[in-house]
Structure formats: structure tokens, C-alpha cells
């Protein structure tokens, strides 16, 4: 696969738009009552879990979540009440991760979008019956997820595990929404390929 240069990886913690949102009028808006703590506490398990997926290392994940939380607290003024706090704080987690050593070394192996390969990977020639999975073994699926290329895996996890919308995922990953869509599709196709041996008894 082709590689992209590091410059394509965006690491700006906050976009100009987010900074603009920090205007006093936004902050003073009535109904913006929820405190940072109230919003963040329920999301801690999800943040840690995603940090674990990103780093694949417990100590690093904890540091990452810690740093992301303290950045988020400092930047809380830029959170627009009424928008999805989970998407906002996941974006901060993502951008914090991109500044870590793990992520910087991973930029050398970031995969470029490759439409031809998507088509090849999602070839529907296999009989539809064969695509029905007997996925009672979650450990097998987890292993398949670990083996996915990180750009595909991150999209899929944000969608299926964190239940975020494509638009929110696009915001978190700084990608066009079409790219999010195609990555999710490619991720699922790659998962199917990994799980082929575990498909149900129907041939």
C-alpha cells in the first residue's frame, strides 16, 4: 500500500470554528447548565476503551485519556452546548493521540485511500449465504479487529462501538464524510475476509 507523508496528519487540537464557538454569547446561552464533570464522567469508560484501541497498551491508554481529559477541561469553553459532547471529546482524544509517540511512529504506515482496492475487497461474487456469519465467538471478532489497518478500525469502532454518526466521525477524524463511509465499508469487507474460516456451516 502507498504511504502518505506526515503532513497530511492533522494535529491541531481545535479548529478555528471551535474557537469561534467560544464566544461569550454561546457560553451565556441558557440551558447550557451541564458541567464538564457531569458530561465527562459517564463517558470515561468509552474514552478509556477507545484509548486502549488506539494505543493497544494499558499504560499509554491511561496517559492518553488523562491528557485528553485535561485538555478538554481547559477547552470546555469552546464546547457548543447542544452539540454532541461525546463527539467533541473524542475529537480531543484523537488529536491528543496523534501527538503521542505511538501515533507519530504509526504515521509512517498510514494507508492511503485506494478506491480500486475497495472494489476488489468488497467483491460480491461470494455466495450471499456464505456471508452469513455465526459470530457467537466475540474473541475471534476482536482478534480480527486488532488485525485491521488502524485507519479502517478507528472508523468502524467509532461507528459500531461508540455509535457515532458518520458526520461526527468525520469531525473526529478530520475526514470527508464520503471517506468515512468508504472506510467503514472497507473495514467490514476486511473483517469478513478475516473471519472467512469462522463462517457458519453453510457453504
Amino acid at each position, binding site marked *: 500500500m502507498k504511504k502518505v507523508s506526515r503532513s497530511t496528519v492533522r494535529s491541531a487540537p481545535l479548529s478555528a470554528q471551535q474557537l469561534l464557538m467560544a464566544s461569550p454569547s454561546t*457560553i*451565556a446561552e441558557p440551558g447550557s*447548565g*451541564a*458541567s*464538564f*464533570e*457531569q458530561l*465527562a*464522567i459517564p463517558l*470515561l*469508560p468509552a*474514552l*478509556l*476503551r477507545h484509548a*486502549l*484501541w488506539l494505543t493497544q497498551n*494499558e499504560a499509554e*491508554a*491511561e496517559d492518553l*485519556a*488523562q491528557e485528553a*481529559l*485535561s485538555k478538554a*477541561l*481547559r477547552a*470546555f469553553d469552546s464546547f457548543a452546548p447542544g452539540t454532541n459532547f461525546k463527539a467533541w471529546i473524542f475529537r480531543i482524544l484523537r488529536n491528543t493521540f496523534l501527538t503521542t509517540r505511538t501515533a507519530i511512529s504509526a504515521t509512517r504506515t498510514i494507508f492511503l485511500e485506494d478506491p480500486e482496492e475497495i472494489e476488489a475487497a*468488497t467483491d*460480491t461474487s461470494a455466495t*450471499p*449465504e456464505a*456471508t*452469513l*456469519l455465526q*459470530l457467537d465467538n*466475540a*474473541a475471534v*471478532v*476482536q482478534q*480480527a*479487529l486488532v488485525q485491521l489497518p488502524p485507519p479502517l478500525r478507528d472508523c*468502524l*469502532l467509532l*461507528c*459500531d*462501538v461508540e*455509535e457515532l*454518526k*458518520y458526520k461526527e466521525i468525520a469531525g473526529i477524524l478530520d475526514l470527508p464524510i464520503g471517506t468515512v*463511509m*468508504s472506510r*467503514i*465499508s472497507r473495514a*467490514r*469487507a476486511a*473483517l*469478513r475476509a478475516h473471519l472467512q474460516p469462522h463462517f457458519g456451516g453453510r457453504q
Partner: protein
Amino acid sequence: MTIATEHLQPAQIDAFADHELSPDEARAVQQHIASCHPCSLRLLSTIELKQATAEAGRRLDPPAAMLARLTAQLRQNTSAMPQPKRLLSFPRANFLWPALAAALLLVAVSFATWSAGRAHNALTAELLDQHLATLSAAATPQVLSTDRHTVKPWFEGKLPFSFNLPDTDALPPGTTLKGANLTYLGDHPAALLLFTVGKHQVSVFVTDRSSVSTPAASTRSGFALRSTTAGDLRLIAIGDVDPPQLDRLLASLASVQQTR
């Protein structure tokens, strides 16, 4: 029954399973799968895979201890960085802290004022008591002398500081040194010099400046109290004379001390 000539794209099926299609697009997909068995199976497979992914993704469960540490850290950080604009959303935490701080401050200030006032009054009372004791006819000074060259050496080795006495002529008119006592003011040694001003008796306490606080100039039970400092010494005069007379006596005493 319509024969579907063109199957759904994988991304279309995925978006449908993820509830990401517009109502019109979703309706078109539903119409297609109603008549296309392979595509309906692909959709079913996608929904199954999505559920399996969600389950597998959540298997990576953060350890409870890690979660507890993160929660504690967050609580600590949010309380260390109060956000005034969100004050009302924290009725139990943010609201009470300033009130508690104010209450503690009030208690501290009033205690300090009370204890300072108490110490003050205690010192004045002690000075007055000691002065009254010297007025008794039976009270003989420990060193009975009008000669400064007798009085000053008598204190040597008795006090942790030294002081000078002026010549008889340098004292204000009508003021005479009668003698001296070694005494204590609030556990600190002090020289008690006895003077007569006219027919009135005046006590002058000489002590280390750091040993006692400054007593307020006052008049109490007919006795005037004045104090001054000279170098490291504190001089306090008390007697039933006009305060300006005490001031003149203190000034003459202060003028002969070595300012260190």
C-alpha cells in the same frame, strides 16, 4: 415482482445498516431488498457483523482501577479549576466552597482580633498591676539608688539586653530616679525603673522590643500609659501624671540608648 437488475452497493448496505441514509434513499433500499434475496442476505449479514463488532469492541474493557484513577483525577481537576459561569450547576460543590472559605476566614479574623485584644488588655493590666505594687509603702526597690552608675550595673547578668540611663540633669525637670526592680512581663525579663515626677510615682519598664507587643497609649483607672521604642528596646511608662510628662521622660530615656 420486479427483477432487480442491479444489486445494492456494499457502501449502500452499510449506510442503511448504520441508519445513515436519507428517508428517500432508505425507502429505495427497502424496496430493493424486498425483491432481491442476495441483497437482503447481505444486509442481514452486515447487521450481524455490526452487532458482532460492537460486542467485540467492548470486550476491550478498561480495568476498574484505571477507571477509578481517571475519575478521581477528573474530579480533582474540575475542583481545582472552578468555572464561575457554571457555578449554579454545582449546588453541592462549587456553591458551598466559597461560603465555607468565607466562614473560615471570618472565624480566623475574629479569633485573631479577639486574641490580640485579649493579649493587649492582659499586657496593660499586668503593667498596671506591677506599677500599683511599687506604690505600696512597704515595697522597697531591689536596687535603691538615684545613681545611674549603681542602677545600670545592677542589671548586668540579669537581663538578656543592656540599656543606658541618662544623667540626672538630662532627665526632665522634677523627675528623679528612685531605684529599680527586676521584673517579668509576659514571661520575659524586664527592668522596672522607678521614678518620681513631682510627687507622683512613675514606673518605666525596659524590655526587649520583641518580647512584648506595643501597648496602646491609654489612660486606665487614672493612670496614663505611654510607650516608645529605642533600637531593640521597648520602653513603657505608666503613672498618675499627665501623658506629656510620660512622653518627655520616655524621650529622655530613649535618647541615650544606643540605636543598634
